[in-house]
């Protein structure tokens, strides 16, 4: 079994984290400038999360399969979890198709510097919100 017991728990944790990211100006301002709409398609357990940066604020929606995303990311939940700790070699994950990214590459690349601060935020968020057992650093 993977890190997360079920889709509900995964949504609770990752959805909550994405909302925190959306409320953090250091990251959110750059994401909003990009105007991106990103759909994360997670498996094991299955979850769809859309991060919509096309408006004035960042909107996080679970289960949204209707919105036309600019970037589609597909990966296992465990890879997604590890990624937010900065523990996934992004190039390797993409080469070995542990992550599949579809969309305009220059726009995807532009996002990378913006999300770097989230690596430090994720373990802190887990610890502060009662999800400490999911923190791989603990």
């Amino acid at each position: 079994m993977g890190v997360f017991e079920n889709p509900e728990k995964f949504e609770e944790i990752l959805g909550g984290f994405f909302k925190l990211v959306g409320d953090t100006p250091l990251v959110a301002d750059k994401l909003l400038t990009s105007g991106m709409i990103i759909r994360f398609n997670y498996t094991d357990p299955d979850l769809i999360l859309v991060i919509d940066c096309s408006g004035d604020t960042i909107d996080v929606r679970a289960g949204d399969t209707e919105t036309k995303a600019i970037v589609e990311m597909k990966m296992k939940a465990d890879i997604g979890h590890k990624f937010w700790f900065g523990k996934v070699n992004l190039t390797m994950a993409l080469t070995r198709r542990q992550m599949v990214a579809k969309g305009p590459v220059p726009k995807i690349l532009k996002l990378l510097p913006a999300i770097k601060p989230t690596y430090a935020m994720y373990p802190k968020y887990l610890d502060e919100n009662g999800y400490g057992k999911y923190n791989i650093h603990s």
Partner: protein
Amino acid sequence: MNGYAGKILYVNLTSGQIRSKPLDRVFARENIGGLGFGTRIFLDIIQQNPDFDALSAENPFILMTGPLTGMHMDGVARWTVCAKSPLTGFWGDANIGGHFGAALKFAGYDGIVITGASDHPVFLFINNDTVELRDAGAYWGKDVYTVTDRMMTDLKTQSSGKGQILTIGPAGENLVRFASLIHNKGHAAGRTGMGTVWGAKKLKAIYVSGSNKLSVAHPARLKTLRRELKEIYEESIYIAALQSTGTTSHMDIGILSGDIPIKNWQMTEWEQIDKLGPVVIEEKIYAGRKTCFGCGVACKKEAEVKKGAFKMKKGPAPEYETVATFGTMCLNADIESVAKANEICNCYGMDTISCGSTIAFAMECFEKGLIDPEDTGGLDLTWGNARAIVEMVEKIGKQEGFGAVLAQGSARAVRYIGNQAAAFLTTVKGLEAPMHDPRSAHGYGLAYGVSPRGACHGASLTFEVEGGAMYIPEIPDLAMDLPEGSRDRAKLNVAAQDYGMFFSNCAIFCNLGGTPLDATRAIAIINHVTGFDYTLDELMRIGRRVWYLKRGFSNLFGAGVLEDNLPPRLMTPMPDGPTKGSVPDMNLMLAEFYEIRGLDNNGIPREKVLLALGLGPLANLLRGKD
């Protein structure tokens, strides 16, 4: 012969004699091409007199294409050069793309072996069967851009096809120890001072044009494979990144893992990093894209700075390595100045990695008070001083003032500045390390340490595999899930060297444009082109032999176990950031590596290992070295 032009040129600059010899089919099959040919021919030439100076007439210079060079395919336009390195004193080689290699094969030659030295400046003119050494007095002293433009005009009417030029600039003539060979203004055989070898031989340039065609053994099979590859390339995000922003896309990716050296390897994070990233590059200096022969990846970018202190005409843009050496390494966030430094390096013909790293080293010496404005001729070498960086690049090219000290490379500059400066070195075997931090991926540390030409990310495929750009499922040691730290890195390095020698040294695939290829497809390409029936085992054995030859040459020239270590600067853990506390365990990795490779306590290959690979002549030369 399918895939090959069928002849090798031998040019003796001392006597002026030029001969062409048919390429032997058995030799081709056994050595593939590129450095496979180069190392074998080098061994034959130096056997009688292995003790020579890199700047002497005795140093052979060998330029070789591979069987794929000149094919209309992605990622196969490359070719190789080799000689003893004037920068390190050990084995030297470099790998370069563009159109020159293809043109040489269209002229009828798989490679050129240059021996001796001329007593006056010459250039080699090749137009199919017409091969002549000509006086280069009119070009000597001129920069690379001028020579390229002028020679193209001067020789156009004497050419049967479009001419291609490989030349040195003033840095090579002035014997700057990291002088490079430049083709078409921006393609560089950059590392280990191959341009310096030409300068010492008074060889200014090679002009080549040809009108022959290359044959392929199985064109229908190749066509089918190319169709299959088209889809694979279209799906590769790595290729898409190269196409959109070139190698500088690594500025965005590398910073995540702490791979980018900053302030002479003292930092891995910097708030100004975005000013050097692909977004700013596109906004400020981007001026178009170019490509190598037959390659649809087109990762080469053009740059232009229209006004200001760093104004430059439209020309080759800095690659990632150059942006890092003149940018992050020097704490210089001015991308226009980086583009200008790159232009000067291209015009003078200098390796941007060694040049930028040596300036970063000097900046640290300046900061720590080991040198002052009196030494530097008034230049204020404080971190981030873009104007001083650019001025110093030019001084190095001219061997002027303090530039003459830095023109020797950072390791030699310590002799002038003083031993305290050794603490700031980033060299292995005297070669400045490339812009990928082994503290972020420990296998790079071993790769730099045991690379026969010195610290280098192109000396094997370790960087591509551990970094993640390549995946070779047919070779277990190149497909395993690596644990964190230094474990399993020796196995990784050995396999990445053996396969890498085949892939990017002999065949010769591009380490960028060839990344989507697994072993099955890479072997299919070479078999379809040549008609040989290579197996992976056979190619790994050939690759292994090439690695031992290169290693043996460096041993022969004096490299031993001490030269396999990383400098203290690269072994200093970072206090924070993505690589916090992480340093490669070189003792562990080297011990495992020596065991697998069969190296003795001095780092020299054991005789039985060499004999098993048919390298008796190398074993004879090395006997007594241990």
